């Protein structure tokens, strides 16, 4: 999911402060960024349509809160970056320390542990000679 600069700032702001309405968001960003209430309203609406915010009508105004918490969002970002956008193979744009897929069984892991232990014992034996 692509997020614009203002969308990122507003999402961050909502994670930091909790429930807000468009007026409060506008008041927060007016000094540092400028912009109109209309821009804030449409950005909040876009974030709602992207399912990152939930909203509830209170009186005449919508009150927005985060629909996804920060850690879940970051977790999804890492998964997206690691995978090739839906395919099962690893992304050609990333080098990961260890495979990001769970595809080794217990027997294979035990075999690897045995190999490492053998090598360690052989090295120790060489050193004591």
């Amino acid at each position, binding site marked *: 999911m692509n997020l614009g600069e203002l969308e990122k700032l507003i999402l961050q702001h909502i994670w930091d402060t909790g429930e807000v309405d468009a007026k409060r968001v506008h008041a927060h960003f007016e000094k540092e960024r400028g912009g109109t209430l209309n821009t804030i309203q449409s950005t909040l609406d876009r974030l709602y349509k992207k399912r990152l915010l939930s909203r509830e009508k209170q009186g005449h105004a919508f009150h927005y809160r985060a629909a996804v918490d920060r850690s879940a969002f*970051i977790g999804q970002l890492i998964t997206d970056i690691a995978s090739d956008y839906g395919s099962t193979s690893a992304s050609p744009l990333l*080098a990961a320390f260890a495979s990001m897929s769970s595809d080794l069984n217990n027997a294979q892991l035990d075999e690897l542990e045995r190999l490492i232990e053998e*090598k360690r014992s052989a090295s120790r034996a060489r050193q004591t000679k």
Partner: protein
Amino acid sequence: MISGHWGLSLNILSIISVSLCASLIFTSAAVLLILHSLQRFDANAKLGILWSVVVLPWPISLLSVGLLTFPEFSQTSETWLSSFAHWHHIYNFEILSWHGASTWIFSLIFISVCITKIYKAFKASSKLSQLDFFGENTPCKQGLIVIESAQCQAFTSGLVRPRSYITSGLRDQLTQQEASVVAAHELAHASTHDPLKKYVVSLFTAFFPKSVGQQINDAFSLALEQIADQSVLRTVNDETIVSNTLLKVSKLNSHYVGELPVSTCHFSTHPLTLRIRYLLSDDKGRSFPILLFCSFAAMTTVLSTLSVDLLHHALEQLFIH
């Protein structure tokens, strides 16, 4: 009919497309034959072989252009080369012919592959900038950027300016020494611009049949990992510590609980197994087989050029274009 220099350019494009197709077929067949023997070579040699294999069809197709058009340009068109392979009417190009069809199909595939790859690179870069923005990322003393997340991951990404990341979830479960191993490994990827290399190779492999391309990408990725693993030994001079860290991070990555699904990757042996075996082995394997590669390149050039000539004559014989 298009004549003159435009006709010449389109004929050259037509030769490139047919020759590229032929050399991709020959190279793919060779890849399928040699892929399982790749483990006999050291990681740098593997990387060299895979780079050469993916790039090779392109210079071959250009060489075919030279071989097929040379008789037309030479003063005496009756040369030994013209009896071997030639291309008639080099200055005339018929759009509604098989030349036209091959040129358009090639151009369409080429443009769509480039657009798809650029789009993916753009999306990945956008995700990475989101991660930088939201992750509350802080540099740690090992030189990696720490992402505040419960996941257990460490990776390097970024085409132009590669950055190495580690999640706080992984960092908190590693000892000081293990963290140094992960950092040295990831920083090795960043210093050699491995994400960019992987991206360029995936660009070339996109023209291969899908399964062959995927196997080349996997083998290339494995070779890069093995080189990065080796470079860790400059910091932590003990293969068993590096291997143990690899195993531990893999287990943490996959939330190792009970029996896991069997490997679904293309290698008969899992990449992690191959990496650990490579780290622990005293004999790293053979170096780049220059003679074998040159012979293969020469043979593929001849076969691809002949294929273009044969196809050209066969189609003209059957359909008169």
